[in-house]
């Protein structure tokens, strides 16, 4: 356990000045800021909208891209960046000749990638809420304060996070084994496009294909109208079949990856 914590801290220490880390922070900030500017400059056109619609438009702009392309590409990039730092520096041999178990080194790296995905999604939630509320304050005619989207937003992002686990494990292992950027990137990109096509065509077995999961997660966002027309609220169906597949793939590939790392000769 100590080895794991030390390795995890070292992962942060190594990456804190790299694009891999900062992209997880800057991306949500930048996208939310752009949206903020868009809404701010077009406030007059949006002023007649009810609060709920404003929030749906504001957060939905990102959610749509997130479900199709942004999340998978982000995962591919993060999985690549945490591994490429060792490939580039030729430090696998040093990592595996430290008096730390191979499991700790491997798990710390994997969980650090997972942490970066989590951090990025968390910041998307926070920045969406912060900029939305800021709009409501700066432009009182935008009635953001009418509606609270917090719970639905948090839920859908948790759903995104769960749906990203399968892809992350696969991309992590690919990036660990392959030294160059193009192979894991290419495989990831083609799989993502395939996943989007499968999911958007409602293929029956799309839920079995991890790269379709973010798209399917977006579908889980439903409009629950049970509580009357006055205050409709958004619901998220958290544990659907693809969520379980995502989790199973993540666990399976993580374990398989560990045995590959154990057996793998360090060049």
């Amino acid at each position: 356990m100590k080895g794991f914590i030390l390795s995890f801290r070292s992962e942060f220490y190594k990456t804190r000045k790299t694009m891999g880390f900062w992209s997880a922070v800057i991306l949500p900030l930048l996208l939310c800021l752009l949206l903020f500017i868009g809404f701010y400059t077009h406030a007059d056109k949006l002023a007649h909208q009810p609060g709920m619609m404003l929030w749906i438009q504001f957060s939905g702009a990102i959610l749509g891209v997130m479900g199709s392309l942004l999340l998978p590409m982000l995962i591919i990039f993060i999985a690549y960046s945490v591994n490429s730092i060792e490939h580039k520096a030729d430090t696998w041999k040093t990592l595996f000749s430290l008096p730390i178990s191979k499991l700790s080194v491997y798990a710390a790296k994997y969980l650090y990638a997972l942490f970066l995905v989590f951090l990025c999604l968390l910041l998307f939630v926070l920045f969406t809420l912060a900029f939305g509320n800021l709009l409501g304050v700066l432009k009182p005619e935008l009635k953001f304060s009418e509606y609270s989207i917090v719970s639905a937003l948090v839920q859908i992002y948790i759903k995104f996070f769960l749906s990203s686990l399968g892809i992350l494990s696969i991309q992590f292992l690919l990036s660990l084994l392959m030294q160059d950027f193009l192979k894991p990137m290419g495989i990831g990109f083609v799989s993502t496009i395939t996943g989007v096509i499968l999911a958007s065509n409602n293929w029956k077995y799309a839920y079995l294909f991890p790269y379709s999961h973010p798209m399917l997660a977006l579908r889980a966002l439903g409009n629950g109208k049970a509580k009357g027309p006055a205050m409709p609220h958004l619901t998220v169906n958290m544990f659907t079949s693809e969520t379980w597949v995502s989790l199973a793939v993540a666990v399976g590939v993580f374990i398989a990856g560990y045995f590959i790392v154990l057996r793998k000769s360090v060049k």
Partner: protein
Amino acid sequence: MVINTDSLTFNFGRQTVVKSLSLQVPEKSIYGFLGPNGAGKTTTIKLLLNLLKTQQGSISVFGKELQHNRIDILSQIGSLIEQPALYLHLSGRENLLNRALLLQISAKRVDEMLSLVHLSDAANKKAGQYSLGMKQRLGIALALLSDPKLLILDEPTNGLDPNGIIEVRELLIKLVTQHEKTVFVSSHLLAEVERMATHVGIINHGELLFQGSIKDLEALSQPLVQIEIENTADAANFLKRNDFTVTDADEHHIFVPFTTKEQMGRINALLNKNGYAVYSIRKQQKDLEKLFLSITQNN
């Protein structure tokens, strides 16, 4: 023995890279592991660090079997394999601090290491901007950081200038003589190993061709009498006529196999009496470089 391997064999696919290697590295020695490029040195080192899985034979370090005591053993080893592995986007100090974090070593030790390898002034420069020699020195600092009992260094003086080579050599000698460490150092340059090693292992095509102390190695070579003289060709012929074997003659010297001191005296007197001015005459060990070549080529 600090390192003891028994019939260690390793194959990359069908190619046998290490053949039945039995290394014996005594405590507090500088063991020079010599061999031409591609002889299997780095593979052996990776086996010693458990980076490659032992296929046949066994390795014990500090008297413990490696596979089952991996972490315990690795905690007492500092290593540098091939070119130093550095995070080029981090500064020299950050590279050391990162390792210190992993090994739970104080930051004070980091600064000591930086000054030991003369990188204090460049400590905050990115490792990517270091020269090859500076990278190598940082690699040595990383290997020494945990104050390990055993240092395994793969060609540590690669890319260093003569000054740097001397510094590394003196540092290693100091570590062994004053701090009771054991150093296992690989090289393809005999001249370099000869100056610091107490023990030598010579490997070629994966096979250990010689192992023993540096004195054993010297004893293998037959000493020669080196005579500096004018007109070497005539002098050589003259000696041959007088029943001496002349093994070699060049523009300035002739060489005769050494048997006794008296023989040297007789040669000297004979040449002088017959009008050959002898400028110098001395006993000479066979050049280790030549010995090394003859060992590696005969096999």
